[in-house]
């Protein structure tokens, strides 16, 4: 049943997330887009964009959206979909919530333990790879377009990617500003 599947999937995403929202994206993409097909790669990218310009952690935002969409696509009423959205969002925080209460105090006392420190330093390294994978997985025809379909879209996509990458890394330009500007460019070029 879809509700159990949402509960199970988002519990998994929650407890295996180390290293912040961006690190979570590879995990969410793997579970939500590839394994369960609850949304397309383009939809996933759109919800990441939306999450950057709305309040709240990216993990909660994607869980809410995926929960709603998955239940609608399974053929249920919107009322059940609202339940699905809440269920998914609470599932993401359920196991970390328990872990914080059970292990939190213990870890607070042992945070200087050398083995804990070694494990954490290796996790940090793996997280860099996780985020790189999340970005690489999203470089696809759904997000960049194809040469065969529209050379203009592909070239503009590459230019926008390069400009945003440079601005974000060099000048730490706010993601909100970059997304809004890209939206304006998209509207002007593709609609007008």
């Amino acid at each position, binding site marked *: 049943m879809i509700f159990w599947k949402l509960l199970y999937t988002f519990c998994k995403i929650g407890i295996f997330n180390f290293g912040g929202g961006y690190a979570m994206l590879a995990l969410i993409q793997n579970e939500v887009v590839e394994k369960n097909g609850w949304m397309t790669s383009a939809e996933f990218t759109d919800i990441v964009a939306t999450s950057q310009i709305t309040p709240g*952690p990216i993990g*909660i*935002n994607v869980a809410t959206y995926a929960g709603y969409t998955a239940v609608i696509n399974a053929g249920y009423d919107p009322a059940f979909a609202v339940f699905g959205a809440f269920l998914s969002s609470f599932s993401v925080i359920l196991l970390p919530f328990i872990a*914080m209460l059970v292990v939190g105090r213990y870890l*607070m006392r042992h945070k200087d333990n050398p083995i804990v420190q070694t494990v954490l330093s290796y*996790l940090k390294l793996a997280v860099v790879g*996780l*985020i790189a994978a999340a970005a690489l997985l999203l470089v696809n025809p759904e997000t960049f377009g194809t040469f065969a379909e529209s050379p203009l*879209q592909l070239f503009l996509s590459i230019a926008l990617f390069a400009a945003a990458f440079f601005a974000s890394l060099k000048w730490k330009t706010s993601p909100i500003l970059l997304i809004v500007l890209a939206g304006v460019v998209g509207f002007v070029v*593709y609609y007008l």
Partner: protein
Amino acid sequence: MVSIWQLFWSFFKIGTFTIGGGYAMIPLMEKELVDRHGWLTEEEFMEILALSQTMPGIFAANMATYVGWRLRGILGAVFSVIGNILMPILIILALAMGLHYVQGNPVVEAIFKGVRPVVVALIAAPVFRMAKTANVTRYNFWIPVVAALLIWLLDVSPIWVIVATVIGGFLYGKFVEGKEATS
């Protein structure tokens, strides 16, 4: 004593007024919990911050859990977390309902066509920023590279990469570094 409603309200404000993910909440949390109400000292706040980053899960929710628990026990933890994520859930829910109506709308599609490559760039940029804080050197850079390739090209679940890293790091810390320390 802090009331659970006060906790709920504080975290509701923190969750509602920070755009762009959990880490954007840090300054507002500090202002609300340390400066405004004095519920935590600066030092306690920094300790809980470090713990919340270390533990798995969503950083902001972890913060809310521990602060709520510290001040009012289990009930405080529950109300703080719910307060923190309630508004974000409601906003995305409203957008999800709206998006189902405008799906295929040419204006929305045109805007998102421009936005998608920028989202990819926004995910790619932190890779290089974080490579510095994670202390990537020429001896260990194979770890992030292998992790990325496994997930990207071989469709390995990130869960296995995390599990393997924790086990590998534990064994290395216990048997290699541990021995060096005693010998």
